[in-house]
């Protein structure tokens, strides 16, 4: 299964994973490995305190791009299931931004697929962060960190 979802409001990534695992197609005994990456919002960036952020996205292309990059990664790392959920809209520090979870028989593939999915999302999924600093000023994050 590939499941992709955007959240306009705060979400709990662990709850999302639990809900995913409750589907009929999910056979828990078939997977020996579950790799999970959860990204959350920091309250600092480039030496400044950050109090809030707006996550802009290109509606339509975002979902399509996430689906495409997942299918692409699966050709190289054929795990059994992929769950990607990403926040959009107004967020505050400590909020979850993204969860990428994969299930496979063994850890090597699970780790590799999870990492590659996250890197592909960072590289190609059309989201843009607009930070609100402690003094009330706003600025666009112009590039992602190297990781």
């Amino acid at each position, binding site marked *: 299964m590939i499941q992709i979802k955007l959240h306009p409001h705060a979400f709990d990534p662990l709850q999302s994973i639990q809900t995913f695992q409750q589907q009929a197609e999910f056979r828990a005994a078939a997977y020996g490995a579950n790799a999970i990456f959860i*990204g959350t919002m920091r309250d600092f960036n480039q030496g400044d305190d950050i109090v809030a952020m707006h*996550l*802009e*996205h*290109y509606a*339509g*292309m975002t979902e*399509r*791009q996430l689906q*495409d990059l997942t299918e692409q990664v699966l050709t190289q790392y054929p795990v059994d299931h992929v769950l990607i959920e*990403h926040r959009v809209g107004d967020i505050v520090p400590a909020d979850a*931004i*993204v969860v990428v979870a994969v299930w496979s028989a063994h850890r090597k593939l699970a780790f590799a697929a999870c990492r590659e999915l*996250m890197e592909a*999302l*960072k*590289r*190609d*999924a*059309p*989201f*843009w*962060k*607009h930070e609100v600093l402690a003094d009330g000023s706003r600025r*666009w*994050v*112009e*590039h*992602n960190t190297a990781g």
Partner: protein
Amino acid sequence: MSIKVLFFGSLKEQINKAQVLVDYVEPLTAAQLWQQVTGKEAIPNTVRVAVNQSYSDASTILHEGDEVAFFPPVTGG
């Protein structure tokens, strides 16, 4: 028919537009559309181009009804 042009992120503020409708006159490439809408020269290397919600490039030939987006490096995740 026209072409819908979208701008996102910091580029939206630099151009001071989020969305523009442009009359279609063939032939038209994404690079020519950029010049027409922004009044600027070549598309900067950092600006990415999407046609009908898929990544594309400056030389792409556009068609009536296309949706074209220009945006800065993405910063999700």
